[in-house]
């Protein structure tokens, strides 16, 4: 941790079927992760419009995470594949906005991976803390 006083706001879009359930399992298993993460439930990772990510990062979020089912396990057959290809586009768009592309990540967490969920959240928060506040933060 480089910046002890920096308390980032991180949004995590979690798909209803895998990652949101994985987050619940982290809870049931009492696996702690930083309080900086705020979860927004979406039906599928493929539902998250790139504008949502860009808006969040330009309006004060320090990091945005999309979490979906593992490839091949999508409840909607291939929504996560769509999210994956979109993620690459989002990274390019972030460059145009002058936002470090590390501020956005896409991760796969299944409903049975409470431990992984907590770990991903810890890692990402750590990474965002190292990056410091978003350039768009006033």
């Amino acid at each position, binding site marked *: 941790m480089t910046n002890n006083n920096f308390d980032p706001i991180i*949004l995590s879009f979690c798909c209803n079927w895998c990652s949101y359930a994985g987050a619940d399992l982290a809870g049931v298993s009492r*696996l702690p992760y930083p*309080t900086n993460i705020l979860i927004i439930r979406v039906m599928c990772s493929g*539902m998250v419009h790139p504008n949502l990510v860009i808006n969040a990062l330009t309006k004060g979020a320090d990091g945005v995470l999309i979490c979906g089912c593992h490839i091949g396990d999508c409840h909607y057959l291939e929504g996560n594949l769509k999210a994956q290809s979109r993620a690459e586009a989002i990274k390019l768009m972030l460059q145009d906005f002058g936002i470090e592309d590390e501020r956005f990540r896409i991760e796969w967490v299944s409903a049975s991976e409470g431990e992984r969920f907590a770990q991903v959240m810890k890692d990402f928060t750590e990474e965002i803390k190292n990056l410091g506040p978003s350039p768009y933060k006033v």
Partner: protein
Amino acid sequence: MVTLSINNQKIEVNEGITLLTAIEGIGIKVPTLCHHKALIPYGACRLCVVEVQVPERAASLQASCSYPVISGITVTTDNERIRNARKIVAELLLVRCPDSETIKKIADEYGVKEPRIKKKNEDCILCGLCVRMCEQRMGRSAIGFTGRGPRRKQETPFGKHNEMCWICGACNFICPVGKKVQTFTSDRLPIPIPDSFNMGLNERAVVNVLYPQAIPNKPAIDNNTCLHLNYDVCGICKEVCEAKAIDYEQKEQKLELNVGAIILSPGYNLFNPDLKPDYGYGKFKNVITALEFERILSASGPFQGKIIRPSDKTDPEKIAWIQCVGSRDHERDYCSAVCCMYATKEAIIAKEHEGEKLKCDIFYMDIRAFSKGFEEYYIRAQKLGVNYIRCRPLSIKELPETNNLIIDYLTEDDRKLSGEYDLVILSTGLTSPGNAKKLAKEFGLELNKYDFCETSSFAPVDSPKEGVFITGVFTEPKDIPESVMQGSAAAARILSLLYTEKGKLVKEKVYPPEKDVKGEEPRVGVFVCHCGRNIGGVISVPEVVGYVKTLPDVVHAEDNLFTCSAESGEKIKQAINEHNLNRVIVASCTPRTHEPLFQSIIQEAGLNPYLFEMANIRDQCTWVHMHEPKLALQKAKDLVRMAVAKARFLEPLYKRKVKIYRDALVIGGGVSGITSAINLAEQYFEVYLLEKSDTLGGNLKQVKFLLNGDDPQKKLNSLIDMVKHHPKIHIFTNSQIVKIDGSVGNFSTEFKSDGNVHTINHGVVIVATGAEEYKPTEYMYGQDKKIITQTELEENLAKGSRQLSGQTTNHESSVATPQRGTRHKQQTVVMIQCVGSRDEKRPYCSRICCQQAIKNALLIKEKSPDTDVFILYRDIRTYGFNEGYYTKAREKDVRFIAYNADKKPEVEKINGQLKVSVYNPVLDAKVNIKTDLLILSTGVIPRDDAKDLAQKLKVPLTKDGFFLEAHMKLRPVDFANDGVFLCGLAHFPKTVDESIAQSLAASSRASTIISKEKIELAAVISNVVDENCDGCAYCIDPCPYKALTLFEYMREGSIKKTVEVDELKCKGCGTCMATCPKKGIYVRNFTLEHITAQVEAALQTV
């Protein structure tokens, strides 16, 4: 009632409670140490001091745990004086027990780093919890206090072990500084209760949830070990349960039910490895069963998924699996069918976990990877470095100094070798369930010699007794998908038996008429749940309520101890009416479990169920941030604020009901299609049965014998007869499908049959199009009449013809019946397995060829015992009870010669004589066999036209070309597309009984749809905003359900392009919404507006 003020808050509480209870009741936390809800307050540690001001008197510090509530007092729970007092308490505690983690944490909280006095290093803080527990709750008084002042200590009478102690371990459990109190009261240790779900690898509590997936997922009290139920003591759980859910009076009940049919699914018992003493199970700590290892691998298992071995809890570096423990031996001449794959799976998971350094060896006889996707999985394991050793393990010895194990084994070429392992896993087989004999007696079933209840090939789930059905491993060892198929098959059989009674017990819930909230300003009501201590114990729920009330449009907020209780449900309904709420939020646990309950509650109050939102402040807040209560409180406020922001935009949604066609289309007139059609017709549905060729019967027409001796042709003919004469079944031969439109409930299919074009409407489709036999190009097939396939051999055997080969009249090849009058000449037959299976082009195993070869070999041996039969094989895969026929074949002198995939047999013809040569690894030499007949065991391949049908139905195929079901294990007859089902060889090669079970399963699944008049469509689906949509069609291709179509219409004199959503197909994934550049399409209640509101609320800094 008593009125008092706590932290300037006036409250009214019941008389007789303590101050601590009153304080905690309003969500304020006070530190405690010697306090326990189930014990009489003691006031020993004084950590819970608060300042109490009795009117007219000076404020004094009092231990809140033992101070009663008094009318008119003013209480302060936190100020400098109190903190100082607590700090001194913490410091003195730290002097006594400087090493205790609990004490260190308390000291840390009050800023005590090092005590100013010399540390005493005691192991007891004299809190008296153990003494009170033993006396008040256990009624034993095995331990007490002696001495006074500085000499006071906790002790047993005369400092000796006390016979009063009954080693319940409650003293150990309750001690805050972790002292093993019980070692002073008795020389015996508490007997751990093994966690049976984790195979006894860890302990469990008396009150526990049996396993993570238990339904209901609630704890139960084990009445064998509960002290209260057995000795009328303890009863602590009842005191601490805030939900007041503990009822000691519940008794086991015997219920009598009137039923129309019974399904027996008793499962199996795992083979008891004690019966194989050579493997040292139970004697050597590091010899475990595969199920024990399965639990070790599990994240919810005894070691949280860490791979450690039992003896010293270290990481094993070399693991061995021993296959066929309790299967395929003299006493159990059957194959358990699942062990090869579970061992492979465990090895892969272990490898993925531990990486390169872990060495996995699997000791086996034959690897039986015979199901869909299994062979590829087996290949993957080998690529990952899992080492398969074909051998016979002899014994296991333990090295006493390391607890490592030495496995002695005999290789194929009879060399005795040994290997050292850190952990040995026994792949124990499946045996009949413990209650098999009892069930058999009760239901008049006949068991085989291994106490399984075998069923017949054409009625795989029927018992001899009408109305009683059998499924799962009880009929034969089998894997998950086959068990699921049998389960659904039994349901199908019952549906046809009891179709007149179907749905009679269903009671539909009636809700009051819905209030119209259109045009109303949002009036949000928020209900914040304490969930007992789960939320309320970490954050101040009243503070969250106070915060929520400041949010825009929130007109009501309250807290509930348990919002999901019936009482709270009433309060929600009351609040909806009283405050005219039109949006409701519950801040509690997860919508995944509780949303339906709350939706039903608000519906009872006349609100549309979709005007509801949840804030997950338990699973995703207090449970994961319990050590950071201040930040958790902040986050809980954030989460509720986000929920309110979204709720303001929620719209009422409706599940549209669509009338459906209740007829079924079955494609394929083989035994699978016929079985499905008959079953559906018996359930009183109209069935259209389409067959591509001019006759019914499919591949089964070529099967002349079954291993168990049944005559398949007789059965097939009677089925064909039945299907032809059933008034509800409409058969179309020579048919060809032109197109299939629509979706679940409303399909429309156009097809040609015997020259005519028909169009039918139907609600479901069953794909039973079969597969075909591979026509080989290898091994000189087609170049000599004496080289034929197993099916051709079977045809010849059935004809009883003298010659088994092609159309030859050459006497030399007549092995079935020796020529009358001629001296019998000994003949030779060679069979080659895996022709067109398990190779590069078709990597899958065709599952049935081993059985077929053995069946035909036995038939030849029966007709002509002198004939030499050789079977050249890679692995013999006679799973289940077919193993017995493999044994029988060996007894009858059928000779089995193993060959390797990289050294396939070679066939040549020299001077009219066929010669097969094969490298035999056992002899390490080439074996040459001159043969009169060469039989090729050809695989099963998908039909060429499968692809075309798949496209018409918009369903996927595997890369091998078979139809791909929704889930390989759990949904073996469903497609991901609703209303389309799968059975028979079109799914994967399988035997007759498996095909029949799967076809029954398909009709049972289909019946779940067409049993209803209407189907309910999902409400949370896509919706097009015509004004925004410019018809760019970006959304159309990405839609995984092909639910979107582009269309044009005339608007204001010009052509307007727009997109239309097929509400029957759309599942609401929102891929379209995220693809649309113009906000032209959205998922209801998950629109960009909704999600943006949540995002913006999250970013508001408070």
